[in-house]
């Protein structure tokens, strides 16, 4: 699954930190596109977490962003 984070709201540094913190739960790939940070998530270890994984990850990035600002 892919998530497009707008640079206007989500600084790339917080996304990288979130990926580091979640790296035990799935495989991540991250690249910058014009105005977005594209995060690719694969191989979620716990299949029960899969439906909520994306949303929980987005919430975590947002909480880190708020802490930064």
């Amino acid at each position: 699954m892919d998530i497009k984070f707008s640079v206007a709201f989500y600084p790339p540094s917080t996304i990288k930190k979130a990926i580091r913190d979640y790296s035990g739960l799935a495989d991540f790939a991250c690249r910058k596109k014009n105005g977005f940070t594209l995060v690719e998530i694969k191989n979620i270890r716990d299949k029960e977490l899969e439906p909520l994984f994306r949303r929980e990850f987005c919430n975590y990035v947002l909480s880190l962003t708020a802490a930064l600002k």
Partner: protein
Amino acid sequence: MKNNNGFVIELDKECYAGEAVIATCCQFLAKSYVFLEQGDNIRVTLTPKNGIVVENLSKEFKEELLNNTLRYSISRRNKDLREYIVKAALLGAQPRTDTDDLLFSGLQNSSASDYKDDPLGITIPWEEKKVKNKRRIVK
């Protein structure tokens, strides 16, 4: 606007500051899943967690957003004053150094001397000064 995932709220980016939107979203992280996107407008997707009534959530979000926008604009307006107060408080709390003591004692001494003291002879009229000088020359 209702969506499969919950609510999508479109906000004019000219009216709402990004900081106020993020602060509001953070207040809703415990109740819902929040995702922010930016195009021509700011798009907030709110997906309530279990047991939360969707209609109330959207209403609450808009109210909180207005509160945070007001808070943000007031804090931006008062920024200089706030900084000034903090600087003054920090300077006042600094311990005295030796240099401060020297300056302070110098000030005290200068205030103790009287205005009638005239070590440079400024108050002596120029005629008297001239006469004195002539006498010196004649001698």
